[in-house]
């Protein structure tokens, strides 16, 4: 399957996947930062458990939408002191994110255009 087809066949994204990709759009983040960012972006509506977060991360890693980076970077958040792994969007992940946003824009435009006129 070429990349264009792969992008199209991946849509629509689940809410969890979309929020994770969105949180990684500005740059790499580790698991806890993704969790906090998603909660803030959704104004507290979407709160991941670690199971949901890492289940989605695993699938996105397997599909090469994101990659692990920053291995060996020390945990600055004092709690564990262990090297912390961060995640970064790949070029495929960026394309999927862009395609999903475009799909949503189309839907919104369609919904606005077909909205019944208020009398």
């Amino acid at each position, binding site marked *: 399957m070429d990349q264009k087809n792969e992008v199209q066949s991946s849509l629509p994204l689940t809410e969890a996947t979309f929020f994770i990709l969105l949180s990684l759009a500005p740059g790499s983040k580790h*698991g*806890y930062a993704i*969790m906090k960012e998603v909660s803030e972006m959704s104004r507290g509506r979407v*709160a991941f*458990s*670690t*199971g*949901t*977060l*890492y*289940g989605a*991360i*695993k*699938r996105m890693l397997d599909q090469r939408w994101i990659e692990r980076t920053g291995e060996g970077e020390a*945990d600055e*958040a004092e*709690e*564990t002191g*262990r090297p*912390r*792994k961060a995640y970064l969007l790949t070029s495929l992940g960026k394309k999927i994110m862009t395609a999903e946003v475009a799909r949503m824009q189309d839907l919104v435009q369609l919904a606005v255009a077909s909205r019944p006129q208020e009398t």
Partner: protein
Amino acid sequence: MDGQSGTRTIVAHKVYRAVLRLYPTGFRGRFGQEMSDVFEQAFAERLRRGFGPALGVLVQEILDAPGCIAREHIAERSPGDAAGIAGGYAAGYAGPLAASHPRLWSSLVSALAFGVGFFLLGVTDVLRETYGNGELERLGLSGILCAGGFGGLGLGLIMDARKKGLFVLWGAVGFLFAQVFINCLYEGIFPNAMSTPAMSLQDLLIAFLYPLGMGCVFGLIIGAASLRGKCMLPFMVSGGLALMAGFFTNRLSAALMQSYLLPAPAGGIPSPEGGWLLLYILVPYLLEGVLLGALLGPAARRSTFAST
């Protein structure tokens, strides 16, 4: 952190790690440490706002865990693996149980064999009804041979596993002979019983004489082949009663399905068509075979032991 919140934190971490252990090994090896770290960070941050919010993090993890754990277990295994694991567990439990209960083992083996045989008999009946307008008698013949052959195999495994091939032959031929013999006898004595529905208790009893007689003849033939004249009468009676019970189950399950799954049209006899036909014929046949086998298996074992 005071002593009380320290203890609560330790307990919460232990509970979380216990939940984490339920994830598949591969997933845990890849993300377990990270997940644990993230949970500890989230718990510590919420704990600054009080124990209630911190407990909320743990509760959310526990509530989400069943779905997440099940999803990861399914994702780590192909359907074949899952079936294999389920089969392995079933065999792991059923094996020792059956070994310690020989009657149960004989019942299971026989029920499985007769169940398969009668299911195939049902399949040939469906094919005959669907494609042959009831004219493909050879299909009916092969169905009867299948039912008898598989049943014979099950009984052979219980009575004398070294001669199971012979039992298959005796079973197939015996079942066919029993059917033909009882059919002729029955039509001679009760000429209209096969073509008219039972309207009274007498009609019903006459209807049940058919499987009783057929089971007795089948039991007699199998018994003659294996028991060398000893204990044949009890085995023959067991065969008759077991086939009668199976026949009753067949009719009862068909009637229940017709009553509850596809109710009869007002004043008419239900006539299942298409896909329903499969269900109406195959399920009662399967149940008939399973019950017949489940009853006949222990009787075969008992007769074999008593005759030696």
